[in-house]
């Protein structure tokens, strides 16, 4: 950068020009400071969402830039939360963008002492096999008294209550068709 520009950006000279003998205000602001603005203004889009923590159901606004969540704030339009969030809701951005999150499938073979990598497709196929095999092995057409039950008690499901209703619906539908009965969730706990 040329000396002229450097001098031009020297606040002392700006003070002289502005006859500012104190140097407390705008004259000492850096170019970077003068360009400050809310990063949400740079978002590609802002999406309406709902907080995933408790059941109050606070509205959230999710800012997205280049396919990444850049911010999550309360949604002022919500008649329930009126734009406000609790500490957990306020930490939602960290929740979804934390480096601690899982990104790939981990597999532990029986008696294994360490996690192994496993392609998702392979994992899904193996899980399907386990379910089919266990179901076949433990199928009951009749119970001990000869009453039709057409079910398996060989495996169980426990779901969190942060699952969407659509997700719960498909799960219950699938498990019921499989004859799996021990389908439970957090509501029991």
């Amino acid at each position, binding site marked *: 950068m040329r000396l002229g520009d450097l001098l031009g950006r020297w*606040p002392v000279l700006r*003070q002289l020009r502005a006859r500012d003998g*104190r140097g*407390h205000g705008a004259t000492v602001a850096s170019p970077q400071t003068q360009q400050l603005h809310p990063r949400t203004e740079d978002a590609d889009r802002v999406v309406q969402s709902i907080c995933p923590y408790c059941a109050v159901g606070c509205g959230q606004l999710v800012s997205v830039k280049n396919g990444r969540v850049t911010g999550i704030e309360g949604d002022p339009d919500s008649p329930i939360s009126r734009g406000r969030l609790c500490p957990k809701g306020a930490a939602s951005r960290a929740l979804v963008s934390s480096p601690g999150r899982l990104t790939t499938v981990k597999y532990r073979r029986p008696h294994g002492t360490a996690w192994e990598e496993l392609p998702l497709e392979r994992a899904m196929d193996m899980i399907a096999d386990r379910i089919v095999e266990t179901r076949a092995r433990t199928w009951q057409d009749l119970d001990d008294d000869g009453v039709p039950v057409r079910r398996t008690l060989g495996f169980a499901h426990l779901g969190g209550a942060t699952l969407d209703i659509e997700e719960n619906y498909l799960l219950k539908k699938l498990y019921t068709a499989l004859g799996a009965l021990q389908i439970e969730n957090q509501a029991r706990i």
Partner: protein
Amino acid sequence: MGADELRTYYDRPVLKAPTWRFWIPSYFFLGGTAAGSSLLAAGADAIGDARLRRAARVTALAALGGGAVALVADLGRPERFHHMLRVFRPSSPMNMGSWVLAAYGPAVGVAALADVSGRAPLLGKVATWSAAALAPAVATYTGVLVADTAIPAWHGARTVLPGLFAAGAAASSGGVVAAIVPDAAPARRVALGGVAAELALSSALVKSLPDDVGAAYLEGRAGRLRRAATGLSLAGAGTCAAGASMRAGRAGRLLTRFGGVAIALGAAVERFAVVEAGRASANDPRATIGPQRRTAAAKGIDGPDEGLAAQ
């Protein structure tokens, strides 16, 4: 809840302790030494004592150089040291000090270089006297800097601290220069005078503060440092005087040298004592709340008896 009993938030400090590390009191000492030396150099120039003048000029440059290093080293972002001259802000003693140093530094440098090189004696003279002109500011602004904080032990002593630092500047510069040229009576006198003033102002400082604030200078680490400083100064002064009284002779010179160094050390430790006292004072919520509670009461802002009692 009695009015006498102070209430705090889990005994936690209200203020933040200074972030300054040992560099800063070191600079206070070195800067003061440089300033005093610049005055000695001018004095020596006036009486035409070349040996004393050279010793003073070189001491000033050495001390200031060390001080500059200390200043930069203490910054959280040393590479940005030049931002100190980014603005002109009279409300900031540190900013003012920076501008002063910006003028003082070159003067000291030129004076010393001219002397050592033996070239441009006139320029050296001008530089010497310019440095001397700025020296009082350099010696005292640090006292203002420390006083212009929220820390009770410092802010409460704002009218004494500049003087204490000036006295320290005299003592340390006199001490160092005397150690180099033991025969130079003016240096010895400046050193001894400095010590006298330093001891007087140091006790005046404590007396000027209310007990709950002044305690910071008497107790703990600060108290120990302060006592050490006093000891060194007195011992140094005694030795120096003794050395001077023994007309010439190697022994006398040796004593004077020792005395000079001890005096300088005393002045240095005194600065560390002041900084330590500030740290202790900031960490003690009572030192902050006590005096403010008294001024508040004077203004009629509700006192500790109200509040709960009203519940």
